């Protein structure tokens, strides 16, 4: 026993600071105090400031009539509807452009990623130039540029491009298409479609068990495609074309009837998809390059043909590398859709976070709603992608 250890009485500070466990508790208590002080004073200030302006914190304004128009609404909406209804219209518009963008950007991104790996020099370099240009320019510029091209370079309504002999028109007011009206008999077509999907699923199960038992391979893909396309078509013809098309016609200054894709949606959708596709392409390229060449060689040595090598060996392994960055690209796309405000597409930022905010002056409530909505969308996307990632992840012992 050393003399100093027995005589030196550690001070309180030393007890709290030089002991690892005590220190961690002290640090956490201090951090909690700072956090409570910080947020507490923020909330306190907010209460004082709101009271000084003579209004509390309340969401009652959501019931008041919004009194502004939204040109694209998939649920009933008029200028007499409430701010709440406007918010729902905005949410649906955001989701619409986000989902459409995710689908298109995935298709484009995978295509570009594969082209970037092509042995064809010209195609390879074209993909490189495209990806580098798009990635290095802000997405807002892409949105504005594409919107500008649609609005300024496409013909006016009177000279609209006529597609497929008077069924669809493209002008600077958007893409006008015939809209379907479903007759009662259409439910048989729908039933045939669902039946075909069930059939394809069962057939796949059967084919798998057959392959497991006997080794015989059935053409699952082609049978499924044939069933899913063929059965509804047969039902459609058998029930006597149960769809009435309503065609757009030029009346006065604009087209009447039919369905329309507006230039704002078109510009936002294309710009977000083209922009995100460039990033996805790089992820796809990195993912495919990450797979050791030995894998391909081993699979060739086993006698697998090239397409099976890709489908069964390379792509499943590459997906493990691709999916995590892919999900953050999807998140970015969903968040970038808020730039809709720059071209007047009425998404959730432009409705509740834009016009409603300016009309009611309730900045705090509106911004909290908008942020909460984006947080929910982001968490949902990352939840889905995490689930998918777990499914394809390497299962180790």
């Amino acid at each position: 026993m050393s003399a100093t250890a027995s005589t030196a009485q550690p001070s309180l500070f030393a007890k709290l600071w030089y002991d690892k466990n005590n220190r961690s508790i002290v640090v956490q208590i201090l951090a909690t105090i700072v956090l409570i002080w910080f947020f507490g004073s923020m909330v306190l200030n907010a209460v004082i400031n709101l009271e000084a302006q003579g209004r509390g914190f309340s969401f009652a304004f959501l019931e008041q009539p919004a009194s502004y128009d939204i040109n694209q609404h998939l649920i009933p909406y008029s200028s007499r509807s409430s701010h709440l209804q406007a918010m729902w219209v905005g949410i649906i518009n955001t989701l619409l452009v986000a989902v459409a963008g995710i689908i298109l950007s995935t298709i484009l991104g995978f295509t570009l990623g594969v082209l970037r790996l092509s042995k064809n020099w010209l195609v390879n370099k074209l993909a490189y130039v495209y990806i580098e240009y798009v990635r290095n320019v802000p997405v807002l510029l892409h949105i504005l540029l594409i919107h500008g091209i649609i609005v300024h370079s496409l013909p006016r309504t009177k000279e609209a491009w006529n597609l497929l002999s008077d069924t669809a028109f493209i002008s600077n007011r958007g893409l006008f298409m015939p809209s379907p009206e479903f007759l009662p008999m259409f439910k048989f077509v729908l039933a045939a479609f669902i039946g075909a999907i069930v059939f394809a699923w069962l057939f796949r199960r059967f084919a798998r068990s057959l392959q497991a038992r006997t080794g015989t391979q059935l053409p699952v893909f082609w049978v499924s495609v044939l069933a899913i396309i063929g059965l509804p078509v047969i039902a459609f013809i058998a029930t006597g074309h149960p769809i009435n098309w309503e065609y757009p016609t030029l009346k006065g200054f604009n087209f009447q009837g039919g369905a329309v894709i507006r230039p704002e949606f078109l510009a936002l959708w294309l710009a977000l998809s083209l922009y995100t596709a460039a990033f996805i392409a790089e992820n796809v390229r990195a993912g495919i390059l990450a797979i050791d060449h030995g894998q391909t060689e081993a699979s060739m040595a086993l006698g697998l043909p090239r397409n099976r090598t890709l489908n069964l060996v390379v792509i499943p392994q590459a997906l493990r590398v691709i999916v995590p960055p892919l999900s953050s690209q999807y998140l970015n796309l969903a968040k970038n859709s808020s730039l809709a405000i720059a071209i007047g597409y009425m998404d959730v930022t432009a409705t509740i976070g834009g016009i409603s905010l300016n009309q009611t002056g309730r900045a705090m409530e509106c911004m909290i709603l908008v942020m909460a909505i984006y947080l929910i969308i982001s968490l949902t996307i990352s939840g889905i992608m995490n689930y998918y990632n777990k499914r394809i992840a390497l299962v180790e012992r």
Partner: protein
Amino acid sequence: MEEMIPKKQYAPGEHPEMPPPFKTKGAGLWLQQNLFSSPTNIVLSILAIYFLYKMLPGLLEWSLLDAAFTGSDRNECRAKAGGACWAFISERLPLFTYGFYPAEERWRVDLSFLFLVISAVALLWEKCPLRKPLMVFAVFFPFIAAFLLLGGNGVKLMVVLACTAVVLLLLYRGFSSAFMMVLALVVAVLAKYAFFGGIGVPFTDIHATQLVDLNQFTQLNLKTVSTDLFGGFMLTLIIGVTGIAFSLPLGVLLALGRQSNLPIIKYSCVVFIEFIRGVPLITLLFVASTMLSFFLPPGTTFNLLVRVLIMVTLFASAYMAEVVRGGLQALPKGQTEAADALGLKYGPAMRLIVLPQALKISIPSIVNTFIGLYKDSVLVIVIGLLDPLGIGRASLSSTEWNGLTNEVYLFVALFFFVSCYGMSRYSLYLENKLHTGHKR
């Protein structure tokens, strides 16, 4: 048996060079191998050539061959040429560069830019001559640039520079980190006192009026310029450089916090990071422009530019934290354990062993985050700051240049392309330079 053809005998090393085997070089072979090696390739090449044939001539004609580079308004351009009207850009170039910064004070912006280039070269280029002194200069650069751009009293700048120098010297002597933090706080309070007067928590009570009238007693005074006049590429650079400079250290702290064993520290970092990453930047900018004043003590106001800078920095730091976390996770646990075994405390272990390796792994992603932050700076137009895009859109509404949207957008796009592409090239160079392992 085949009859042996007698060959001329050569002494070893005397054999003349033979022609290459048939078809191993030449343009024709290159074309065949790279463009027409298989039916798919032939189809792809033909499609690509057709695409180029359709796009390139029109693009070239519009942007260069049939474009007007001089002229005083839109109609003059149209009379001269059918393509782009670049005269607009060249006439408005000062506006695009400086925003509404007073014309007679623009040398200050130029000088700051020159200093920025010098600091950047010193920091980025390893073989730069006089690198050591220039790096010290780079540390002082933010203060000098802020003084140059904002103007005000030169004596106060000297105070701030002296304080920074003392901190640097002490840091160099290796004082403990707790002591340094206290010292940094003292310096921040002093700096705040020097710039804005009054002792208080730094940067919480800056009044817009205080930014204007600081001209007092010395010859070193510069005319003060309000931040409302900032704009154009200058604004983009201010936002980009500030964000880059502050988001990396903040991101590292957040990443370390997220890895921490202390639950309260860990979860506050997680909540902060996930919240910031879950919402779009423009909602945060809206918060900065409309809501932030609610959360401050009554009567306080913040300069809008400062608010935007803080928001952009916080936004980028959350992304940076995730990038750095990736690097930290990629590091084998043996490294931390080795540091523990050597008896290093948490701070030195992180500073000397973990972070250098983790940051090296994450360089490409860090630069990508920088590029993202730099590109995101255009979003400030939604709250009314005049970055190049904002300047362009404002200029478009003038009568003489109405409707030249494509020219404006392409010009701004070119600016961003050049700077971001440069950054990504530099990251590639750095990646190769720091690659210490075996490269296949």
